Structures are given as C-alpha cells and as structure tokens.
C-alpha cells in the first residue's frame, strides 16, 4: 500500500543573528539581483516599483536580523492560498509565488509563521517574495553577506 517516497533537498537562506551586523547589504543585493538592469544604482534609483524586497530586515539596538522566506517543507502559506499563486515546486521544493495569479487575499500574510510575505494593499497583491534567485548557485543575499551571517542551508527532507 505504502511505498517510499523520493528524498528531496530543501534549500533556504537562514540568518545567524549572532553574526548579523545590520549592514543591510543583503537587501541591496536582493534589489539589484531582481532588477531588470542588474545595476545597483538603476535598481535603487530609477526602476519603479523598486524590484526585490525578499529580505525583511529588523534591528533593535545591537541585535539585527534579515529574514526571508524559509521555503518551509510544510508551508502554511501554500495550504492557505486561495488561488494557487503560492505553490511548492514539486521538483525543487521551493515555495514560489506567481504574481499573475495573486489577487491579494492575504491568506499568506495571515498564515506565514515568520511574517515574511509583504502585502501591497493598494496593488491588491503580494509584494515580491524570495525566489532563492532562480537557479543561481548562491542567492544574492548570501553572496553579498560580508560576515556569513546569511547562509544557504541545504538539507535532505526526512
């Protein structure tokens, strides 16, 4: 009746708050990587709306943290999504968001345990969420982190 299922590698970016110095280079890298021009100045100064935004940065005194989608193995946002815009790629295990199918029902905003999805009520749509930089070897935020606070974690799913 029950057969074994194939193991899958789960990839995600994690931030070690012990090392995060609040430089926000991860945010800069995310914006640039997801811009049309891939140019840091154009990405921040001329492209509208501003691209990227997959990293949520917080700071309180000396502690800082930049969190992006954890690409959960058991994503509540995918379960709750009313349209199927939020989906877990069956091949890569990545949690991907298709803005064309998003109607801004806010189910993901309501259910994400880490509070990562960013609503855009005026556009009636979710703002950009982390896509692990498509097929890139290393997500831009990880590559840009001077301190290995942002790290790429890969683990086999149980």
């Amino acid at each position: 009746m029950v057969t074994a299922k194939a193991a899958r590698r789960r990839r995600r970016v994690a931030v070690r708050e012990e090392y995060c110095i609040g430089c926000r280079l991860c945010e800069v890298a995310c914006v640039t990587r997801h811009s049309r021009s891939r140019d840091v100045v154009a990405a921040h100064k001329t492209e509208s709306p501003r691209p990227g935004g997959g990293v949520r940065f917080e700071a309180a005194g000396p502690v800082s943290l930049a969190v992006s989608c954890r690409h959960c193995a058991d994503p509540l946002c995918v379960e709750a999504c009313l349209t199927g815009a939020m989906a877990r790629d069956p091949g890569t295990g990545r949690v991907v968001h298709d803005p064309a199918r998003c109607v801004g029902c806010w189910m993901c905003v309501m259910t994400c345990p880490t509070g990562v999805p960013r609503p855009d009520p005026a556009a009636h749509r979710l703002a950009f969420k982390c896509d692990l930089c498509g097929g890139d070897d290393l997500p831009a935020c990880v590559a840009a982190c001077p301190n290995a606070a942002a790290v790429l974690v890969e683990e086999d799913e149980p």
Partner: protein
Amino acid sequence: MTADLLVIGHSVAACHAAEAARGAGLAGSLVVVGDEPAGNYSRPLISYYLGGRLGRDELSFRSQAFYDRNRIQVLAGRRAVALDPAARTVTLADGERLGYRSLLLATGGEPIVPPIKGWREGLGGVFTFTKLADADALAAWLDARGSDDCVVLGGGLIGLKATEGLLARGVRPRIVELADRVLANTLDREASAILERRLAVAGCEVRKGRTVAEIRAGGDRVSSVVLDNGEVLPARTLIVAIGVKPDLRLVRETPMAVERGILVDSRQRTNLAGVYAAGDCAQGPDFLGLKPAVIAIWPVAARQGRIAGLNAAGASGETAGAIPMNAVQILDVPAVSFGVTNPAPGGGHEILKRDDQAGGKYRKIVLLDGRVVGVVLVGEIDRAGLLGTLIRERADVSDRRDALLRADLGLLDLPADLRRRLVDAPPPAPLKNSSGPARSRSVR
C-alpha cells in the same frame, strides 16, 4: 470498482487529501467524486469572478499537472446519494456503486436559506452565493435586468465578499444585517465601524439590526423586500448570504455521529470505520480549547484534508485543533482576525487596543493568562502571521504588551527561543578569525 481512497466532494479539502495521501505513499486508486460540472475552482474566488477581476479560466487553484502527478481520477458532475458504511460502498445518482477502503467526506457546506414569507423556489432575482453557478446566474441576471436596487441579506464573510464583487461591477448593494455591525462573528465594533465607513464611501448602505421579513414579487420575480420594521426596500435582485451549514445529506441515513457537522477526532476520523471527514462539513477539535466547532474557512479545510489524506494512507498526522482566522479587504482597507475576538466578559481576558478610527487603523490583541488568544487588525496587516504564531505556540507575552500593539511588530519582539526556532538557522560556529565565522559543510 473499489477505490483505495474515495473522496466525496471536489474542492480544497479533497485536493489536499489526495496530495497528502500520495505524498505518504498511497499507491492504489484515488477517486474524487464531485457534483459540480467544472473541474476544481476556488470557491472564494467567485467574488473576484463576479467583479470581473478574474476570468473563468483563472479560478482553478490546482492545474491538470497536479492531477496527473498525484494520479487522481475525477468523476465530475456526479453526485453521491447514498453511503453504506457496512458494505463500504457509495452509490452515485446514476446508480453506479463505488467501493472504498478509505472514504473521505469533503462535501463542504450548503447555503442557509431561512424561511422568509413570500419566498418560493424558482422566484426570479433571488440568489445564494456559494458556487460558480451562482456567480454565473447572478452576473447574467444583472446584465439582463440592470444593477439598480440590489439587496444583500447578510453582512458576514460571504455577504461582504458578494458585495466586493458587486462593487467592482458597478453595483451598489444595500446590505441588511441582523447584528449591530458587519462581520459580527469575526470582528468587533471598532473594526467593523472602519469597514462600514469604507462601504459608505463606496455608496453601499448597511442596514444594521434588521432582517428581511418578507419578499414581495411582481409576477415571477422579486420586486421588493420588507424589513422587520416594516420598511420596504425596492429589490430587483436579492442575494441571500446569511451563512453556510455543513452538507450532511449523504450521512443522514447512516449511524454517523453528527452535531452541527460530522464529528471528527484529531486525525479527522469519524465514528465509522475507514471514514474520514474534512473541511466545511466537519466539526473537529478547537485549538483554543473551546467546544469542537465547524470552522468553515479555506485554510482549515486544506489542513484537515491533508491530515485525513495522511491517515488514510497509513501515515500519521494529527491536528492540534483549528483556529478561526480570516482576511478580507474592503476597497483599500485590509483586515485580519484570529481566534477569540469578542471574549465574553468575566472570562479573565485582557484586551489591548490601539484605535485610530480617523486613520482607518485598528489593532486589538486579546490575552488570556499572558498568552495571545485573539487578534483583530484593520488597515495595517503586515506581519499578521507572527501573531498567529504566538497563538499557536501559546507563547508567554506578558512582558511585551507594548510590542504587540506596534504595527511594526517583528521577530525581534518575540521571545528569543521562539525566534530562533522560527528562523531555524544553523548554530553559530566558533569564530576562527576576524574575517568571519567558519562555514560548516552543510552551510555555504
């Protein structure tokens, strides 16, 4: 035919059950019977469809590839009419009999139509609003008869969703709501007031504390409604949206244990061997320790479907209980609620509030024993999920009341151990040199 997993009802609970069962290794046949003609569509999207925001081909929440990948056989447009739990068979309206090893009842809800004087089957211009066919019929009616004088009976979730669609279509309905506010079950007075003001700006009047006592017809169609105070509202179109109730037609003649819905345990099992129930037809454990309830919302249907699918496939899966939650947007004002939003006085609840009616923003947190059990957010809903986490984790937040009321509540405001668990970063490596910490092998 005998199915290894037979599902009755083809909607969100069914799809999640099928995916979970396959994921857990169910190898045999998986059959879903649904009485609606179309393939899957997302029920909540019918308001966006009515409003013209989505086309008919944009309503499906799972693609054909999903069905292929999970080897799901769909019997569409077929209705199950009888269940024989002893023989483990289900009979369809056309007489076909299907056997099952495991059965999932995911029949959802049916609209409540109260007895109203003057109501009769087939009266033109009177609609319910829960299915795609309802949205099609309503749209055709509005196109043919014009959009003036539309009345929505019920200012709950479905009534407001219908209103959203109507407004987007240029129709300005009058809402008649028995309670003293819209979304009375999920929001509170202050939150509802903000949404009601937005509705007023959109030209949509809300008659509160009133219901429809009589429907008057002109020939074969509705012409007006009489409220319980005698007032007459012209009504060329009447949408009855006072709620849904579990669809129990299939189990009425069986020894199935039911209250309001089909009673299920934390694995979605019913009292009948091999029979599970999930979604809007099921009444299961409540996370906050209240009585088992029917919590008729999409995320709960998805989760319960999933748990049923896992158990039907022989894997383990258990719910800690469902939490009511909802998100809506009226024009440009979003709102989110969780859990106990209007605690009865004397229950020991503590209420934190930040009320900015003029700015259209409102935030309320309900605490019990220093733990969050209810949330209402209007206007600013960013990071709402963190509050859901605090409820699910039963985290002690008695020392961070101020943070809970801040719109920019973040992970750093959460207890450190909980935050670390959520972020789930690898443990810090010892610093090797000034250029930074060592990078372990699993970590790049």
